[in-house]
């Protein structure tokens, strides 16, 4: 096991070309904060790209930022904040959740196609990924996309690279579309709704023209764990809706939402920021201790049915909802979840709803035994395999990270 630490993309490409020639495989690591995501690494060596860091170009008026793949997110976020801009997809910080202490980097956020609470309104990392340079499994340096916000020249390879967990190419540099930071924000908290009532209400709010930018529901036991006072102090469940924009507009829309859904407690901008960061980070809202954590993406209207089915299966199930029901975070007691982390029963509960589920937190041995990502079948699975071999035929890059052989 060798750890390679190239100082530029050309050196990194040499390592990959060598590995391909010698039949060796590589685990791609930058900050390492999400090493525990996906199936456990089984590579012969490690390619540590953390020296490929730094912002290359940031032009706020063009809404464009180009940075090397291992640039820390903290650095990017600070630069953007100084110019009153942001990454609209609100990449969450999963360090607490994954139990890692590594530094989250741009490459990792893109490779995992991250998205935070604003997903309902603004999309995921994939939607802001404009172009990149990368190294394929042959060790060739290649590029796709561009450095402008609108471009349809060639296949949209950014979409493939986002969410590929480093199994198609090693990202070395990426260009993103950035957006202005809203002038202000507030959150409306509605109390005491059962899941079956709350999810339709969230969807109703998202269907209004009042531009709700985040919509979550925290059942009572989850809400009580919140570090945000207004959320934790109530007695029951908390349903939260965020509004962002210019101050007069936010005030108007907050009133409009309340006249539709009823009056609630309002969180001002600072508390709003804390609450949605906490929801994105997940960890603090689920029970501590030996837990398996699942991330489920059902069709939003089916979310309450899914969590009822889960509660029927697991006494220890604790869940909360983001994305208007389109995202369920589920915590299970490790013993009750069993040797597969609960996979068979979780997936049975999801079957009717449509969508997919990922086992995010479990020890290596559990993740090695279980399909961490929703298994694929038939023609689709075969197509995915062919795509993989079009980029990395020898399985050099993060072998088996997503699925067996991929």
């Amino acid at each position, binding site marked *: 096991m060798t750890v390679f630490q190239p100082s530029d993309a050309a050196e990194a490409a040499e390592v990959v070309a060598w590995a391909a*020639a010698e039949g060796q495989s590589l685990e791609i690591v930058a900050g390492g904060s999400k090493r525990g995501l996906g199936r456990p690494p089984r590579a012969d060596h490690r390619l540590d790209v953390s020296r490929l860091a730094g912002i290359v170009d940031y032009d706020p008026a063009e809404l464009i930022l180009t940075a090397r793949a291992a640039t820390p997110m903290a650095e990017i976020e600070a630069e953007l904040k100084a110019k009153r801009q942001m990454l609209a997809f609100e990449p969450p910080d999963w360090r607490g959740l994954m139990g890692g202490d590594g530094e989250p980097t741009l490459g990792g956020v893109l490779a995992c196609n991250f998205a935070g609470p604003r997903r309902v309104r603004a999309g995921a990392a994939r939607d802001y990924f404009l172009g990149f340079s990368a190294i394929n499994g042959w060790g060739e340096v290649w*590029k*796709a996309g561009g450095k*402008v916000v609108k471009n349809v020249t*060639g296949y949209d390879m950014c979409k493939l690279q986002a969410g590929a967990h480093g199994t198609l190419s090693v990202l070395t540099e990426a260009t993103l579309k950035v957006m202005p930071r809203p002038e202000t924000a507030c959150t409306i908290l509605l109390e005491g709704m059962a899941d079956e009532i709350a999810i339709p209400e969230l969807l109703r709010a998202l269907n209004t023209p009042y531009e709700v930018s985040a919509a979550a529901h925290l059942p009572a036991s989850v809400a009580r764990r919140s570090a945000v006072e207004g959320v934790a102090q109530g007695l029951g469940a908390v349903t939260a809706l965020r509004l962002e924009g210019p101050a007069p*507009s936010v005030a108007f829309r907050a009133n409009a939402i309340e006249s539709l859904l009823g009056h609630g407690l309002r969180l001002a901008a600072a508390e709003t920021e804390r609450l949605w960061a906490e929801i994105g980070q997940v960890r603090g809202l689920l029970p501590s201790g030996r837990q398996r954590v699942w991330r489920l993406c059902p*069709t*939003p209207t089916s979310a309450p049915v899914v969590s009822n089915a889960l509660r029927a299966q697991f006494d220890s199930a604790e869940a909360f909802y983001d994305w208007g029901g389109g995202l369920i975070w589920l915590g299970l007691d490790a013993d009750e979840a069993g040797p597969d982390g609960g996979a068979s029963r979780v997936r049975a509960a999801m079957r009717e709803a449509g969508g997919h589920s990922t086992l995010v937190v479990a020890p290596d041995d559990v993740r090695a035994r279980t399909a961490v990502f929703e298994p694929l079948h038939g023609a689709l699975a075969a197509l995915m395999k062919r795509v993989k071999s079009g980029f990395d035929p*020898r399985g050099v890059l993060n072998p088996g990270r997503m699925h067996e052989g991929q």
Partner: protein
Amino acid sequence: MIAMPPADQAVLARRAEIVVALRRIVPGEGVIDAEHERRAFECDGLTAYRQLPMVVVLPETTAQVVEVLRYCSANNVKVVPRGAGTSLSGGALPLEDGVLLGLGKFNRILEIDIANRCVVVQPGVTNLGITHAVQAHGLYYAPDPSSQIACTIGGNVAENSGGVHCLKYGLTTNNVVGIEMVTMDGEAVRLGGKHFDASGYDLLGVMVGSEGMLGVVTEVTVRVLPTPPGARALMIGFPSVEGAGDCVAAVIGDGIIPGGMEIMDRLAIEAAEAFVHAGYPLDADALLIVELDGCEAEVDHLIAAVEAIAARHGATSCRASQSEEERLLFWAGRKAAFPAVGRISPDYYCMDGTIPRKRIGDVLLRMKQMEARYGLRAANVFHAGDGNLHPLILYDANKPGELERAEAFGSDILRLCVEVGGVLTGEHGVGVEKRDLMDTMFNEIDLNQQQRLKCAFDEKSLLNPGKVFPQLCRCAELGRMHVRAGQLSFPNLPRF
């Protein structure tokens, strides 16, 4: 003119037999054989290129598409998918030895799911048809190409089409959440759905914008959005296009993302004003239209903010729409810019490059110099928010050599876009038109990697070949592993 791949004589020789076989799959009028009827399909919106297809097939079900593609794949027959045929890059240009697969009969809206804000449609439904289906519920489909009355959602998916609203609301790719597609070997697969994201690689993301080369789309699920309660537009005159460009940069720099933001140059203003009498300022060298949408409180607040920015950037005139009629009037000239230019010139050729917005001044200056060199004029309309230029080159196809000069001028403009850090196409696609310019943006390795993706979907290169890539795919060769075993050492590479 750009050449299509040479026709497969063996396939042409079997034409009659192929038609019979296709009739067995799609009965009745679904297979068009007569030459005069095939004529209707000989070109798309890039009318300089024409080719009679070998045969036209108009299936009505996914099962028929599966059977047609299975047959064509087994018999090495090429296939070109087609929606409404409004592509401006020749994406739907037929092949002499190919089946033209028209999806026009897939014209049903399958499901309107208000709670999940999704609409499931067949690919032949028009872009505007989706909005019409949901507008009674206060919803709309955001990407709005100017061709939206005619173009199909299947074509939009293939081209990743945009519109005036896409700076704020995204392109097709950001608003399509699922598809059903059939690969060239006749396998139907579903990608995405009403849920967020999907397991495995984002094949939906790469299908969008794939110009009909990776699969035939047979069903589309789109996300629809609540209609903004109101919108107002500003019509702002500037003494120069650069001034207008600086104003756009300042608006965005101030944190405002308008619903739409368009620039027109003097020639475009004059043509549009003569056509629709929108009250455009004829003394201005550039017109900037900015639309702010949202709730009333927000719109009025932002109108005032943009007015102030415009004044600081040397605007010579600025009017805010006071009614919905007036707002639509401001837009009428911009929306009719193409036909308006069509009135002042026998023909025009519409280009579509994107540049970093800050380069607009140089680019227009260099375009002026090219006008002199080619002896042709160009009018400019410009999706200013995202730097997407639409120069309209005026020419007369009846004058010998003018079309060729217009094409050469167009290619020079696109090379210039790339040179200043931009790209060949912002929304119309590469198609046939820009195929041979791909190497201005990409080297051989980049293009090979794109082709390897094509090979994963269509190993025999039968689906829409001859488009986008200057060279036909050689999948066997691309798949081979060229390794330089034993030559590598890492003199300076730290190891641990």
